[in-house]
């Protein structure tokens, strides 16, 4: 018996179909190239900045006060100012932000007021930082007569980061499964005991991640602080006593970078690059910590 020989079918597309397939294949590499653009920019900018500024980084650069001679200028007062302002901002903003998130997710009656509060927070998160700056200028610096002080700066930054911290904390609290709450309530815990002993510990990694990202935003903020008048020559160390230090004028590292950037001399450009390297190391360290906490404590419910 003779087996019929079957002609092999050619699956290769031809004509218009082949052209469409070729277009799709080319598109893959085109889209990849464009996507890598963002990554490339990040690396190129990092590389150029390091080449420009790394030579300026030494102990004197960290411990010197600002100076009109680029070679003697340093980050001492701006680094101390950043630490003071950020520390105060954290102390003011975090309890309020986490409290708001707990109220919204756990206690608030589900009514029109809650809808309004949520909508309001979403809008506040989109308000430009310079608007918070003029709010701080009118309210804290002028009306409350705090002057361009550390406490006025911290209050301004606190109002600025509260909305985004609330939103991140809300997301973390939402991730806690209802069964955990119900179990706690079923054995007789009160509502607050349930929140304090069960919901918050479970939501904590997510809340910490959100808080760290907000802090890194505050650490890089420049416009709002310039608006409240924190653009002065500071050549003293703040007292270690908060009651005195909080009323001091101050400057921060981003403001110092701005100050050096707008000067025409090349030497100040190197100072700015060096300060940027240090600021970016701090910001990326914060972001990395947030990412690690998020991955490490990610729970699958």
């Amino acid at each position, binding site marked *: 018996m003779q087996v019929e020989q079957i002609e092999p079918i050619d699956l290769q597309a031809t004509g218009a179909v082949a052209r469409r397939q070729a277009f799709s294949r080319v598109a893959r590499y085109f889209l990849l190239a464009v996507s890598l653009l963002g990554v490339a920019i990040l690396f190129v900018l990092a590389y150029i900045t390091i080449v420009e500024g790394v030579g300026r980084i030494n102990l004197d650069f960290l411990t010197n006060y600002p100076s009109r001679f680029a070679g003697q200028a340093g980050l001492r007062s701006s680094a101390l100012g950043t630490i003071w302002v950020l520390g105060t901002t954290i102390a003011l903003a975090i309890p309020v932000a986490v409290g708001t998130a707990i*109220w919204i997710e756990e206690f608030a009656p589900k009514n029109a007021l809650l809808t309004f509060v949520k909508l309001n927070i979403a809008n506040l998160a989109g308000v430009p930082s310079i608007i918070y700056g003029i709010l701080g200028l009118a309210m804290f610096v002028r009306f409350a007569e705090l002057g361009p002080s550390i406490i006025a700066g911290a209050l301004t930054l606190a109002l600025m980061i509260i909305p985004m911290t609330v939103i991140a904390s809300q997301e973390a609290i939402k991730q806690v499964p209802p069964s955990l709450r119900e179990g706690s309530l079923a054995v007789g815990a009160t509502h607050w005991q349930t929140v304090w002993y069960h919901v918050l510990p479970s939501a904590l990694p997510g809340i910490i991640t959100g808080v760290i990202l907000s802090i890194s935003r505050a650490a890089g903020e420049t416009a709002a602080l310039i608006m409240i008048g924190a653009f002065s020559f500071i050549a003293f160390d703040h007292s270690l006593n908060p009651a005195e230090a909080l009323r001091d004028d101050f400057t921060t590292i981003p403001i110092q970078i701005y100050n050096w950037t707008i000067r025409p001399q090349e030497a100040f450009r190197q100072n700015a690059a060096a300060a940027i390297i240090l600021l970016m190391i701090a910001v990326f360290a914060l972001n990395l910590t947030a990412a690690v906490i998020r991955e490490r404590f990610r729970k699958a419910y």
Partner: protein
Amino acid sequence: MAVLDPEQGGPAFRESLRKRPLSRWNETIIKAALAACAFVTLATTALIIFVLFRETISFFREVSFADFFLDTEWQPLQEPVSFGIWELVAGTLNVVLWSLLIAIPVGLATAIYLSEYASPRIRRILKPILEALAGVPTVVFAFFALTFITQDMLQPGLGKGTVPIFNSLSASIMLAVMILPTIASLSEDAMSNVPRDLREAAYGLGSTRIEVALRVVVPAALSGIVASILLGIARVIGETMIVAIAAGSTPNLTLDPLASIQTMTGYMLQVGLGDAARGTVDYRSLFAVGTMLFLMTLLFNIAAQIIIGRYREQYE
């Protein structure tokens, strides 16, 4: 724990019952404290509106509405003073236009690649790097715009005669980099949320991957994409440091990318640096421009939220 058994009703159980009203009281106090925290956010909005409007009203007692909206000259700091807002609005629109022309194609191409082409491994590497761009302080972008983009690239490339040291283009390029993560990441989320059925139906009909991406996924995710662009616009309008450092401080009624301009935020920072005395018209003009800025960003943010809200209803 026999004494706590309600059936037996031992003294310890009765004692614990008596304590309950106190714990209820504590709960009430805690709840009130938490509600007070939420009140802070409402108070913030109220304060922003109060401060902006109070000073803006004082401003319009000195400068007429007609001068503000019909005059085409913004010259508040030297005689003869004039307060035509359009030069500043034009400055803002200038950087919005050019930064979007860069950020939309790049952002959407990135979103399409990540959502439709990239393997999970590449996505895991690419997305965090992209999001790292979102963490860069804007004063750093401003430094890049003025030094590397203008001084090292545009001026040597196009000639110092055509590119002034402060120009809209350098600011727009860095603004585009700033909003790239917003547009790419939110658009990618919208595209990933498009149901598989739609894609598979298109593949079943013989579409290629790029055809599915462009003709099925992008249209289905359009509302999310539009929302991401609106949020990007709001961020560009409100950004201060990049435009203040790189785009200049010359109010200019033009959309020319190589012109030296001033945006609304740029003017506000300039006044802030000058330590305007309270009660002067400079100080009040700060709030008039601030009100304009606030309303413009609010408009784009609310539009984005409405579109996101509609889009969620569609697939859930």
